[in-house]
């Protein structure tokens, strides 16, 4: 077969696929700048929904909750994932594939199941610990992704680097601190950002676990949709989307950088 430009039909199909994926998103973003109160009619460019969004105190509280939960769960899941990845990769384990499977299985477990599970489990906590429950739930949610990112980097690291450090007089702890950790840093940071983005976007666990004081942004958006279809939702969603994309882009940038080490 001739290698070159894709044929017309193929190019068209690709474009159609891309349109299918991005059209809903695009319409959301476009209508968030719509001056009209009704989504269906375009009356002109305006930032009024963004202004209204910023003035909404419920929204501000939800954002704050999301950021707290995102940051805390990101830190916790990254620390746990890094320890788990290093422990599994650098020490001999019986049935290593089984332990590894336990780490990343949550990625494919239906989130709804996990959410209901948390709901049941968290009954033992006092009701006012909403944020703490969310942080715990999100830590579990993020862990497998961060673990996969850090493990991928760790697998690429030559184990002889640590041996070389020990050969030169370093203890195992010193070799980890001086050699492995700095080389792992891009993956750790990238994983943390990814975790933040996942937590920010999460709906299921947040919906089931949160209470009135600990509503997160996606749950808040959902609650807005149920009562009135204000274009403010568009603005809010767009802002959330941009924040997530920035986080993920940054995470990828860090991952890309490590390739040149």
């Amino acid at each position: 077969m001739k290698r070159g430009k894709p044929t017309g039909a193929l190019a068209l199909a690709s474009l159609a696929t891309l349109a299918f994926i991005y059209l809903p998103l695009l319409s959301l973003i476009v209508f968030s700048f719509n001056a009209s109160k009704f989504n269906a009619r375009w009356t002109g460019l305006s930032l009024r929904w963004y202004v209204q969004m910023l003035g909404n105190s419920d929204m501000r509280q939800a954002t704050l909750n999301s950021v707290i939960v995102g940051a805390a769960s990101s830190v916790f899941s990254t620390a746990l994932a890094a320890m788990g990845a290093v422990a599994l990769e650098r020490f001999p384990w019986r049935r290593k594939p089984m332990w590894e499977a336990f780490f990343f299985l949550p990625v494919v477990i239906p989130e709804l199941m996990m959410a209901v599970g948390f709901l049941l489990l968290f009954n033992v906590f006092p009701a006012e610990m909403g944020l703490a429950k969310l942080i715990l739930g999100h830590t579990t949610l993020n862990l497998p992704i961060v673990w996969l990112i850090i493990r991928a980097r760790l697998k690429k690291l030559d184990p002889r680097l640590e041996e070389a450090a020990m050969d030169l007089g370093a203890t195992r702890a010193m070799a980890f601190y001086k050699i492995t950790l700095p080389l792992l840093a891009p993956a750790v940071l990238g994983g943390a950002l990814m975790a933040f983005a996942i937590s920010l976007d999460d709906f299921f666990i947040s919906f089931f676990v949160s209470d009135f004081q600990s509503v997160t942004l996606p749950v808040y958006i959902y609650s807005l949709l149920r009562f009135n279809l204000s274009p403010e939702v568009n603005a809010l969603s767009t802002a959330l989307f941009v924040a997530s994309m920035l986080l993920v882009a940054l995470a990828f940038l860090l991952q890309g950088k490590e390739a040149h080490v």
Partner: protein
Amino acid sequence: MSEQFSVEVKEISKSFHGVTVVRDVDFDIRKGEFFALLGPSGCGKTTLLRMIAGFEYPDKGSIWIRGRDVASVPANDRPVNMVFQHYALFPHLSVFENAAFGLRMRRVPEPEVRRRADDVLGVVQLKDLGPRMPAELSGGQQQRVALARALVNQPELLLLDEPMAALDEKLREDMREELKALQHRIGVSFLYVTHDQEEALELADRIAVMEKGRIIQIGAPQEIYESPKTAFVADFVGVSNLLKGKVAEVEQLLVEAASLPPGTAAAAASAQASSAAMRRVWLEVEGVGRIEAFTGDGFQAGEAVTLSLRPERIHLSTSQVSELENRVSAIVQRAIFLGSDIHYHVRLASGLLLRVQTIYSPIRRVRKEGDRVYLMWRSEDATVLA
């Protein structure tokens, strides 16, 4: 424990998951010696090296360095350092910091770190590249950084794990010479692990040939080459024609080794076995016929043996040469012109294929495919192996 050795390895063995990788290995390296550990991949040489470095611990046996059995001492507490196969330079540290790493781990004061790291970079001629990062260096330069980093703590013994493997052919030859010169200059003992027999022959003062976890033979390069102890050694070090046969007759008269022509396999064998006497034997070699040879080992008539015959020891000619005792006629199957040498593949009447190597000279005829020739060699030039 003697002061003349950098390391004495005594009867060490190691197995992984029930598979013995190193078996009863016993050797020592003299101070200032360039010692090569030669063997095919999977022979256990890397495991042996890693046990001396302290990355693996032997199941039994002892490793003596500077008057101490270090067999169960971790790597960071042994006065040996290693140059890794692909160097394992710290990619996030500059050349200078790579070289200084060993000093920093030993909490050497900063001014001394500067001085000693600069010195050792000077030794490997990289003084000006201190601020560079390893990824910015050529393969040869990276190897020098690895050497500097390993030498900075002034080890009793430097371990080198196939250090040329990451370099291309041309550079490899240059680096070999440089490495030999460096070792000479600094006087540190080297333990050099390689599967490349040419490297071992060129660089080492002594070679240990390993096969299946055991050291088969230890000796100077010439000894190993001229009088291999087993067919494996003969085949692995250099190229050899290995011919199966049987001892037909043993002469009772002993021959003074001193009377053997110097430089022959038999002379080397008698030096290796430190036996002054050799015996003439006649072998019935499969596909060749009756062959005369010398041996220092006490072979008996009827014993099955292997005759090792180096390709360059065979004289190939269209006319018979009377002073060469062994003679067989053959037909040239292939002539390979290699510039300085010509390699022949020749077929005997029995169908047996032999390799012959001759030096090329424009005034000598190059034989062609199908040419009828005589193969001749002196009795002293073949080695009889069990």
